[in-house]
């Protein structure tokens, strides 16, 4: 189906999300909609699907004006959307999710629905158990379910909003091949993403948005730098990490054993120098988080010792001390789940500043905390005001806020997925800040599922695989290939010996 959006306007209060946006997508093509976080891409496709009502503008489907004002209109007109956070019902089964919202008689007739489902899923090789609860599926499987459901409704234009966030590499391959098949059948696909490489790999055409407006479009292939400069208005260069390692030891771990109800990990020996960056690689849930939480003082190790360099300059044994002591010693922790563990949804940036400040009498010094908050906002380039609630900030700005709230001076920062969900510019900005900290002597230990990020910024890497932990490896001796092998389980002799000793 040919889709045309003409002069779309949409504002939320004072924020103009879409300003005079026009877009045209041909039947049988995959059209990329590229832009950084907050560029207005999601708003635009939600308008097309009817999830949001436009303020002004026209939607033309196959040349005829379509009055799409609710999702019901959209589906009837043949437009279906896969939302970024899957809009499904986690406690219900796959089959009930598939059926909810489909037309039909009064009774559910699960047998017939199951047959329809299997017939649709088969050509795509989507292997989904129809009786499984959707809450137990992976993100990729939930996407597959949604795609099948939308196809069963007869959509001829399929919108996907950031579908490659949070799915595995093999699921991504399956998704891309399914999308190419659908385009081959004459359906139009709109692929919303902030990831350049995904758009370059999949799309035929790309439209770039910035700050609520279309800034250009191009046919793929197209030089990457041209797309980057369209996205950001200028060319971007990734920060290069200079050697920042100093001679003093910042953290010393010996024979550490720590576990939860699922997995136990053992770190025989780890000495982190001041200014050093240690990357933790491995599949998620292989124990990286346990090590981070232990070094942060949040989790008590079952055995072993842990010493941190204090502001005075000597190593102090911190084993078994409370979290508060770690904070005083200059250890900071940035969790991956920013809104659940790192920040408090309903409090403003200023209130976070107050919470972090040392307890100082009963009353809050509003003027002083306001000044500190304003300073942080300016220094960390946060797009928000002192009284903005952090829940309303975008992901990148939440991460900037977390960084702004870290104490100073800082001996050691522990981070989980420091740039997950951030666009390229925010990612680079975050690492530029972190590298500055390293130059000042702060050590960093971070876990990431992005191998390129690990190889690019770490001095040494520790690989976690199925409860086993490798010895730290110099990054210079490492390639992404080798790293992949190790994550798969080939950790080398030392780790195997450690397992045998257990």
């Amino acid at each position, binding site marked *: 189906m040919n889709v045309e959006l003409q002069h779309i306007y949409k504002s939320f209060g004072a924020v103009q999300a879409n300003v005079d946006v026009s877009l045209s997508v041909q039947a049988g093509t995959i059209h990329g909609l590229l832009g950084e976080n907050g560029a207005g891409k999601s708003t635009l496709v939600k308008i097309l699907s009817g999830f949001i009502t436009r303020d002004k503008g026209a939607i033309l489907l196959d040349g005829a004006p379509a009055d799409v004002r609710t999702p019901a209109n959209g589906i009837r007109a043949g437009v279906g*959307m896969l*939302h970024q956070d899957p809009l499904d019902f*986690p406690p*219900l089964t796959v089959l*009930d999710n598939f059926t909810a919202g489909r037309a039909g008689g009064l*009774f559910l007739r699960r047998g017939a629905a199951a047959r329809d489902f299997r017939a649709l899923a088969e050509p795509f090789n989507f292997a989904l158990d129809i009786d499984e609860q959707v809450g137990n599926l992976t993100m990729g499987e939930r996407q597959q379910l949604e795609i099948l459901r939308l196809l069963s409704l007869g959509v001829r234009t399929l919108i996907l909003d950031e579908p490659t966030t949070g799915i595995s590499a093999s699921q991504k391959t399956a998704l891309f091949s399914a999308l190419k098949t659908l385009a081959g059948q004459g359906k139009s696909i709109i692929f919303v993403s902030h990831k350049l490489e995904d758009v370059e790999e999949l799309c035929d055409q790309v439209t770039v948005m910035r700050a609520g407006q279309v800034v250009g479009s191009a046919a793929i292939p197209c030089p990457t730098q041209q797309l980057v400069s369209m996205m950001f208005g200028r060319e971007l260069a990734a920060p290069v990490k200079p050697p920042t390692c100093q001679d003093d030891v910042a953290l010393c771990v010996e024979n550490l054993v720590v576990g939860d109800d699922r997995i136990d990990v053992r770190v025989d020996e780890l000495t982190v120098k001041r200014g050093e960056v240690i990357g933790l690689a491995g599949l998620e849930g292989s124990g990286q988080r346990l090590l981070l939480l232990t070094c942060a003082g949040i989790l008590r190790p079952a055995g072993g010792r842990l010493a941190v360099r204090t502001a005075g300059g000597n190593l102090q044994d911190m084993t078994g001390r409370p979290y508060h002591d770690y904070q005083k010693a200059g250890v900071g922790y940035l969790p991956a789940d920013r809104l659940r563990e790192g920040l408090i949804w309903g409090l403003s940036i200023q209130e976070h500043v107050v919470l972090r400040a040392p307890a100082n009498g009963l009353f809050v010094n509003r003027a002083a905390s306001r000044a500190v908050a304003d300073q942080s906002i300016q220094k960390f380039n946060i797009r928000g005001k002192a009284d903005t609630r952090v829940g309303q900030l975008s992901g990148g700005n939440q991460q900037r806020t977390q960084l702004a709230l870290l104490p100073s001076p800082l001996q050691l920062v522990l981070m989980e997925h420091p740039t997950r969900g951030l666009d390229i510019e925010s990612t680079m900005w975050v690492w530029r800040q972190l590298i500055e900290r390293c130059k000042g002597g702060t050590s960093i230990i971070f876990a990431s599922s992005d191998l390129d990020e690990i190889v690019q910024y770490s001095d040494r890497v520790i690989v976690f695989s199925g409860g086993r932990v490798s010895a730290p490896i110099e990054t210079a001796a490492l390639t992404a290939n080798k790293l992949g092998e190790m994550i798969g389980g080939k950790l080398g002799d030392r780790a195997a010996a450690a397992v045998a000793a257990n």
Partner: protein
Amino acid sequence: MDLNQLVVILATAIATATPLVFAGIGETITERAGVINLSADGTILMAAMTGFAAALATNNVLVGFIAAAIVGAAFASIVAFGAITLKQSQVAIGFVLALLGADLSSFLGNPIVLVPGPTVPAWNIPLLQDIPVLGRLFFQSDPLVYASYVLIIVVWIFFYRTRPGLLLRSVGEQPAAAFARGSNVVRLRYLYTLLGGALMGIAGAAFSLDFKAGWSNRSTAGYGWIALAIVIFGGWNPLRVAIGAYFFGILQSLASVAQSNIQNVPTQVFSVAPFVLMILVLVLTSGEWLDNLLARLPVGVRRPILRALRQPAPAALGKIFEQD
């Protein structure tokens, strides 16, 4: 205790539980759509009073039930308007209505206190009534009791076997997802809040025109709150909500037997006991100790038991749906 006595206790329990079945299932429907109607206690009192007055004036029980259902739906519409349209706190609105309904019913119902009036006639089912024990328990009741059995089954089928039932559950679980599937969330929530309110109104009339036969001030006070507790106890499943209601009925029935047999205990103890026991059961079935106990069982046995006992509330229960 001989068999005859046991049958009397159980028959009384079923009669006691019938209004609670209506109220509990009404509230279940409303909460499954994501709205908490906390006004149950006030709604039941107002509906009991109005239903009795209407039946008294027309000398027609059916008119009484219709009036009660309308009052129930009217109270629910206030909750719906405040919660869905004005997007205010459902808990606050419901609570205020619960208090208001209690006092308003006493004020307006003053002239008909203890006035004799019509009641639902008994209706024994031919042949079936002669079955030993079962006939006495299930087939020598009145149309209202039979209707409550039908209600339980019909609502269960509606929830789990029909397309609109699936949409109802989805609206309370993830309204945004239901909206994305083309449902009109606002309209559905209004519909099921009013429907639930009407059933709660029928529960009120079931007290004043059947089970308690007549009106006196605050005669049903407390049952609305019990109905709300039974919905949680029943895990938002109509069958189990009904079981909860019958369980409470048995407790009440036992208490009245105990009251006539044990002399030295104040009567208040027996009238309060079922409520206390109900809370105790709620605590016991949701406590952590049960997890520890169940942890000793093999997985195959444990999971169905846990799934039966731990029904999570509808995820969007009491939350406001913002649609742009």
